[in-house]
């Protein structure tokens, strides 16, 4: 009985006809693999907001008369649920393109499936190098990869902050381990010394012991930290309590990645003073496209957008841009995406290299958190 119900349900979805070729009310089907449950679930919440806003705006002025439909499946930031979600998406919804996932583990797991189905994958959340480096035709990424982020951070730490030693803190995941390794390699190559690398699981209860351990190492210049928002907040507080970082009267500067949304500093309070991080999206960016986006977002949701929402918004808009240039099938969308020029999103412009990695860095910059929770942009080249 249950199998029959299941089969009927699937049959009904098969009957949903795909996009018509002759432009009359053409529907572009965007599948989304987002973490709705599990540790990364807050990514999913923020992604959805960005997607919803983009869809609203596209509905008002559809490019080339096309309509956009987004169907979300829960990939839970983890490989096995992600592959199951990808299967549901590919078989049931038959998307023209898929966006996702946030977590490198999950993205890497779904890539073979999506490749086999001939559907392009647009990613804006995972930093693992392996996603674009091997040169997968179907996979695109607009976020800088871990090498771009890590080496850049190490360069600036050494040259602009004058850092000569570092302690690396990372969560024990693909992204955490990978990012930390890149930084360590570059920093050492420049002549810096990585005093310790401390990895921890996502379920650590208390960071006080870790902070004490770092405090006992003597003066440390920089502490690159690779972790999710919740843990990141606790680490910063613990480091301040131990008197390690500037916010606690110490010497060290914590370095963060694009991972941390901008509201983080306000929550950490004084402890976050002196925190330096890479950002790709900033609400104060004076470009009209950003200001309009922020205003519309604030009006719709009642709070400021994070970079995750901004990335999700840009993904939809980028796809719309490809469609506007005349793409109707998955293969055509892929080709138009690869040829993207002159697209300027809220997270910056997009130019894909031969590996479909976005190499444009016009909005990438560094900010430092002030004592009052605001942050000032750093004038680093």
């Amino acid at each position: 009985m249950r199998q029959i119900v299941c089969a009927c349900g699937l049959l009904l979805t098969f009957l949903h006809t795909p996009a018509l070729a002759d432009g009359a009310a053409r529907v572009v089907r965007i599948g989304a693999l987002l973490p709705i449950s599990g540790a990364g679930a807050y990514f999913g919440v923020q992604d959805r907001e960005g997607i919803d806003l983009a869809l609203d705006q596209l509905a008002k002025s559809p490019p080339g008369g096309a309509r956009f439909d987004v169907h979300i499946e829960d990939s839970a930031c983890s490989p096995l649920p992600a592959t199951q979600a990808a299967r549901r998406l590919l078989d049931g919804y038959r998307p023209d393109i898929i966006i996702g996932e946030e977590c490198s583990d999950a993205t890497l797991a779904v890539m073979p499936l999506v490749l086999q189905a001939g559907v392009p994958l647009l990613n804006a959340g995972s930093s693992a190098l392996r996603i674009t480096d091997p040169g997968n035709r179907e996979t695109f990424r607009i976020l800088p990869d871990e090498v771009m982020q890590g080496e850049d951070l190490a360069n600036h730490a050494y040259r602009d902050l004058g850092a000569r030693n570092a302690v690396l803190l990372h969560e024990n995941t693909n992204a955490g381990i990978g990012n930390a390794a890149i930084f360590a390699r570059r920093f050492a190559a420049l002549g810096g010394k990585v005093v310790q690398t401390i990895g921890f699981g996502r379920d650590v209860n208390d960071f006080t012991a870790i902070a004490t351990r770092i405090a006992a190492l003597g003066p440390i210049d920089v502490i690159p930290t690779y972790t999710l928002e919740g843990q990141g907040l606790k680490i910063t507080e613990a480091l301040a309590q131990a008197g390690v970082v500037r916010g606690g009267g110490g010497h060290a500067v914590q370095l963060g990645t694009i991972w941390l949304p901008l509201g983080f500093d306000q929550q950490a309070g004084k402890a976050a003073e002196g925190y330096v991080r890479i950002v790709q999206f900033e609400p104060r960016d004076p470009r009209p496209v950003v200001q309009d986006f922020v205003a519309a977002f604030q009006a719709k949701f009642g709070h400021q957008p994070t970079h995750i929402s901004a990335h999700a918004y840009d993904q939809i808009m980028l796809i719309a841009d490809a469609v506007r240039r005349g793409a109707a099938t998955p293969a055509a969308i892929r080709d138009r995406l690869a040829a993207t020029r002159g697209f300027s999103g809220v997270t910056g412009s997009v130019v894909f290299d031969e590996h479909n990695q976005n190499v444009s860095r016009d909005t990438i910059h560094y900010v430092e958190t002030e004592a009052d929770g605001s942050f000032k942009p750093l004038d680093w080249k």
Partner: protein
Amino acid sequence: MFVLAVQQGLNGLVLGSLYVLVALGLTLVYGVLVQINFAHADFVMIGAFSAYFVTHALHGDYLLSLAAAGAVGALLGYLVNAAIFAPLLGKGSELRPLIATIGVSVMLENGALALLGPVPYAFATRYSAEVIRFGPLYLTAQSVIILAVAATAIVLLHGFLRFTFLGKALRAVAQDRETAGLMGIAPDRLIMLTFIIGSALAGLGGALLAPVLVLTPFAGTSVIVKAFAIVIIGGFGNIEGTILAGLLVGLIEAMTTQVLDPGLIDIVVFGLLLAMLVIRPTGLIAERREENV
């Protein structure tokens, strides 16, 4: 070096006190019911969120929120016992209540998720930012509160069990339910009382943990498996043993973080657990529980 050891020791004691509060509830319930409540972790989580609600929505004092969390925990304990353990008492398979509490745990966690969302809540009290330094050592005011509250709770519990009539009756029921019943003590009521006390402690523990943990609906799961380990290392149903084991596990965590790697904490703690079971299954402080040896 010595200072470092003492500082980590302090860190360990604070963490251990939190573990003790959570584990005491489990061990108390096990003592009278010989059952494990898997939803215990979620009592901790709900206690934490109750405290959050009182401090951030109602703008109450943090210390008041501790009491609120305890009360909420007590209520949850009452409900779970009434709905699951009491009806199944004596009715054979000891596994059914266990699995039923797994179902309850799934419901509570996902209910909280639907209500509160997955984004971690930042719970900051004015005590967690305040750092007290004495010489080269430091403690946050939050840690001092944790130590004080935990110590008070333990002393009160100990006194209750040892010196009051109700407490002695509880111990009698733990020893031998039937005989206690024959002697005019109502085992069902006492089991309910035990549950309420144990769950109140869990709620209180949650409120104290809230500023320390990453606060999401799944926050309880990181604590509960360690709590199980503590209950065994200390000896099932043994209060003093659980207290000792809880503090010990906290210390081990801090020392492992210092000397080895935070990622290895679980291996060390559970390695110790297995070693204890092989060498000394009755627990740190042996009691007369032959049937489980």
